[in-house]
């Protein structure tokens, strides 16, 4: 055997191959991340933005539609001439329903692609994971989903509702129209627990009574026991913050137990048009949901929006609150950039306050103080065709108040 | 002479089946005792009880007349000096012959002691002597799984001997061995008995005849009779249940 042959013993070869694979695999991963780099050369006439949602994993069910709406808005703006004379170039990333991945991809979008803004996220967990990344890199995140409030990052714009634009008015509406005794059910995670804490304070202040509060683990599918608790307490209203699949099991089993919309009013805050289809309209008919937008909302902008969305993605697709919020987020950012005359994050943030936009769900305005938006609140009744019939709205856009500072009863909450 | 191992009315039942129905047996120091009997007589079960693999439902197993080992765990029984060789070779196939012997060294087997253990010259000497004795010196760096069947049996016997046992339990040690290997094994057993007692389960009557002094016959979970091979052969009861049927085979 030659000296060389001796040197290349089994183990050294393993180690060498290891090192090589290591380098290669690292490159493979980073090449994929770099694939947009080629386009960076002609950055003079385009501006890059990130679109970061879960395209795989459990959350893909909900988030894919948001990506679709954002890409549609980008295309519309580009067709109308772009922003500040530049075409918007979206860079789509997959958060994979995994919170560290959201943070990782956000970092990539900001550091590598140097995007002007990122539209993304759904779960609070993903937003919380991205928040430090945006703050440390001074990026701009547009988060389009209703959430539990108690947050106001200078680097995030919130185009979904905070609690006083969805939960608080809907509780008041229920107290005035449906009954005083409330049973709160929710999935066991952050949004329901925070929302219910606020509802309890509000009930106390506005003369309602709390007869029960229950949480079930995510993915829970047997509601027999919970329903017998509901039966024992005989509430007039069930306020539902269950998430995803649990809604299906809950509503099916509620109906089987002989409880219909005539006996108890169930108001949900996470069931939109898309979810109705997975649960089945027959068991949901007559129950309520509170949102800022329904596919049936009667505005000229919405007519155009729904038609365009179906045109782009198929007749069988439905829109919904978060989809609309994602769509308008792109327009709001574009308007803010136009006003600022620049894509610079600080300039856009500065200019954003007071920006108005006629969204499909009605006029929205960015609140310069907390970076949320003024939105009209709506309560709808689910119809047999899977659409909502609006039964109440707030009449005018409600000022966002993520910390519920203007509500005396909320004082002890934070 | 005081018996080193005494079984007193040992009973074992498996889901209602009485495998041992009150066995009494005494083994003297440095005795070679053969256990014979038809299939299902409870020979292997008795070895299992002595080594702790099977727990007796009743009775006593006394070591040196005083210590009842019936409820001890297997490794605790080994610590007393009772070791067992199984019927199928139970060596560690993915370790080398040398490593198999290393684990068998008489040593403190607690985690902490083993962690600090170092291979001393004395240990090495002992292991090399054993390799010579069992004829596996050349194969010492081979994986034990690669050995021939007979060699595996020898390795396992070697592993038991490394522990300097007081009592050695052997279950059909010559199964699958060639004629010369059998003879060698028989001689080895007698060599061993100079330092310890040996309790052997064996089916091969010729082997028993050639190498036994005391034989115990078991039948249906009980001891039928005891004595030398020639005494046994004259016992009519034995002939009836066992030898009678096997006469032609022997």
């Amino acid at each position, binding site marked *: 055997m030659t000296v060389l042959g001796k040197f290349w013993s089994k183990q050294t070869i393993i180690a060498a191959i*290891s090192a090589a694979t290591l380098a290669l695999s690292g490159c493979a991963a980073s090449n994929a*991340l770099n694939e947009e780099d080629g386009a960076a050369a002609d950055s003079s006439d385009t501006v890059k933005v990130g679109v970061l949602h879960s395209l795989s994993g459990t959350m893909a069910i909900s988030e894919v539609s948001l990506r679709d709406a954002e890409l549609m808005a980008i295309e519309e703006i580009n067709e109308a001439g772009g922003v500040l004379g530049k075409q918007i170039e979206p860079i789509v990333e997959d958060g994979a329903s995994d919170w560290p991945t959201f943070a990782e991809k956000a970092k990539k979008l900001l*550091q590598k692609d140097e995007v002007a803004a990122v539209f993304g996220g759904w779960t609070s967990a993903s937003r*919380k994971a991205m928040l430090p990344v945006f703050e440390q890199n001074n990026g701009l995140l547009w988060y389009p989903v209703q959430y539990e409030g108690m947050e106001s990052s200078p680097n995030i714009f919130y185009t979904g509702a905070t609690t006083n634009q969805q939960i608080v008015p809907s509780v008041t509406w229920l107290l005035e129209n449906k009954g005083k005794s409330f049973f709160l059910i929710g999935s066991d995670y952050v949004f329901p627990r925070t929302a219910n804490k606020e509802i309890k304070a509000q009930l106390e202040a506005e003369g309602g009574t709390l007869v029960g509060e229950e949480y079930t683990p995510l993915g829970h599918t047997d509601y027999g026991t919970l329903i017998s608790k509901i039966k024992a307490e005989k509430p007039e209203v069930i306020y539902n913050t269950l998430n995803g699949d649990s809604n299906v099991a809950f509503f099916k089993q509620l109906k089987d137990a002989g409880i219909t919309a005539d006996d108890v009013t169930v108001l949900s805050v996470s069931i939109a048009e898309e979810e109705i289809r997975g649960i089945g309209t027959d068991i949901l008919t007559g129950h309520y949901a509170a949102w800022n937008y329904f596919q049936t909302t009667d505005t000229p902008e919405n007519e155009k929006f729904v038609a365009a969305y179906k045109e782009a993605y198929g007749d069988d697709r439905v829109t919904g609150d978060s989809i609309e919020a994602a769509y308008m987020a792109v327009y709001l950012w574009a308007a803010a950039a136009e006003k600022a005359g620049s894509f610079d994050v600080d300039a856009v943030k500065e200019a954003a306050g007071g920006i108005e936009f006629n969204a499909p769900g009605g006029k929205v305005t960015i609140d310069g103080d907390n970076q949320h938006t003024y939105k009209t609140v709506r309560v709808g009744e689910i119809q047999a065709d899977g659409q909502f019939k609006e039964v109440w709205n707030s009449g005018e856009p409600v000022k966002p108040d993520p910390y519920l500072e203007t509500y005396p009863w909320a004082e002890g909450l934070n | 002479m005081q018996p080193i191992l005494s079984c007193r009315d040992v009973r074992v039942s498996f889901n209602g089946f009485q495998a041992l129905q009150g066995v009494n047996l005494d083994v003297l120091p440095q005795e070679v005792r053969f256990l014979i009997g038809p299939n299902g007589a409870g020979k292997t079960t008795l070895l299992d009880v002595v080594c702790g693999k099977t727990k007796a439902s009743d009775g006593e197993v006394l070591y040196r007349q005083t210590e009842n080992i019936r409820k001890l*765990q297997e*490794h605790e029984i080994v610590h007393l000096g009772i070791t067992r060789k199984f019927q199928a070779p139970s060596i560690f196939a993915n370790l080398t012959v040398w*490593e198999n012997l290393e*684990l068998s060294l008489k040593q403190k087997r*607690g985690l902490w002691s083993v962690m600090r253990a170092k291979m001393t010259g004395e240990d090495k000497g002992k292991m090399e002597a054993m390799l010579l004795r069992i004829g596996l010196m050349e194969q010492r760096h081979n994986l034990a799984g690669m050995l021939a069947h007979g060699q595996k049996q020898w390795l396992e016997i070697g592993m038991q001997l490394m522990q300097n046992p007081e009592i050695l339990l052997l279950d059909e040690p010559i199964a699958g061995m060639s004629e010369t290997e059998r003879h060698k094994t028989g001689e080895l057993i007698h060599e061993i008995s100079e330092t310890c007692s040996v309790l052997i389960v064996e089916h091969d009557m010729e082997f028993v005849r050639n190498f036994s002094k005391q034989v115990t016959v078991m039948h249906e979970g009980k001891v039928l009779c005891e004595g030398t091979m020639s005494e046994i052969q004259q016992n009519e009861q034995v002939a009836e249940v066992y030898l009678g049927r096997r006469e032609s085979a022997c």
Partner: protein
Amino acid sequence: MDKKKLGYWLFFIALFLGPLYLTEFRLALMGKFLCFAIVALGICLIWGYTGILSLGHGVYFGLGAYCTAMYLKLEAANGQLPDFMEWSGVSALPAFWVPFSNPIFAIGASLLIPALIAAILGFLTFKNRIKGVYFSLISQAVVVVFVTLFVAKQDWTGGTNGLTNFTTFLGFSLASPLVQIALYMMTVIILGASFALAAALTNSRVGRVLSAVRDGENRVRFLGFNPTSYKVFVYSLSAALAGLAGTLFVLQVGLISPAMMGIIPSIEMVLWAAVGGRHSLIGAILGAVIVNSAKSFFSEAYPDIWSIFLGLLFIIVVMFLPNGIVGAFESWNEKREKAKRKGGTADAADSVVS
């Protein structure tokens, strides 16, 4: 120094010098993968060497990460109540949080708490001689218990959001690239040290007892060893490694949530060791890096295909590469050497080059 050692040294030096040839972003990824490699080392010890398949290592990883995250959260809160507790309606810091304001306690706990829990679980199950798939399934049940608890006790753990939004570690800003490079290098050093420790263990007499336990636990008893204590030891050690990896993970990634200690991440951890080669420590490290790189690549380029690819990977490794990449390489190498011995030395040099 023999060649084997030289090879390993080269490997770890190459990793250590990562900051020289990797961009900041890629370095962060690699740092994360190397944390996973530490977990894979622990899995290799218990599974490859001792034959215990744990489907619950996500819990130990998570516990370690939470311990350190609690310290980071308290440091970020700067003497006040952590933000999530405030909006969960907690008025005072729970007593069990208090000691975690000390970084030494927190990091110590990130090793010891997983080890302790593993020891308790291991002692009970191993003493009762529950093993094989039964142990694996029970370890999965333990995951369910911990994940459900961590999600439900939102006011103590941050619920599904987990703990995030940290600022400093020992006063150094976690956002600073220099700190991240230092953390990366620390990860490489700790990985190297864990590797050395694991290698020393497997080459010692204890290591041979562990292999013997894998091949025949009952036979080990008849050599006078009590397998329970050995299994409990190696299982706890492996849990401590996972906890340590969790600490390094949370420092670099800045986030831990119950989703990362669930059943799916726990099984993926086993896959890392399986792909690299369950009997090989270096294989475990390679497996963790390769699988996760592939995950980054695939989930990026073809998000839908990732889970099919992952599924196929499980099947292929089990059916065709039971000893993983390193095992496949070794058997290829053996064949090659046999052929070489037969074919003489003339073409030996060629085959080395090719």
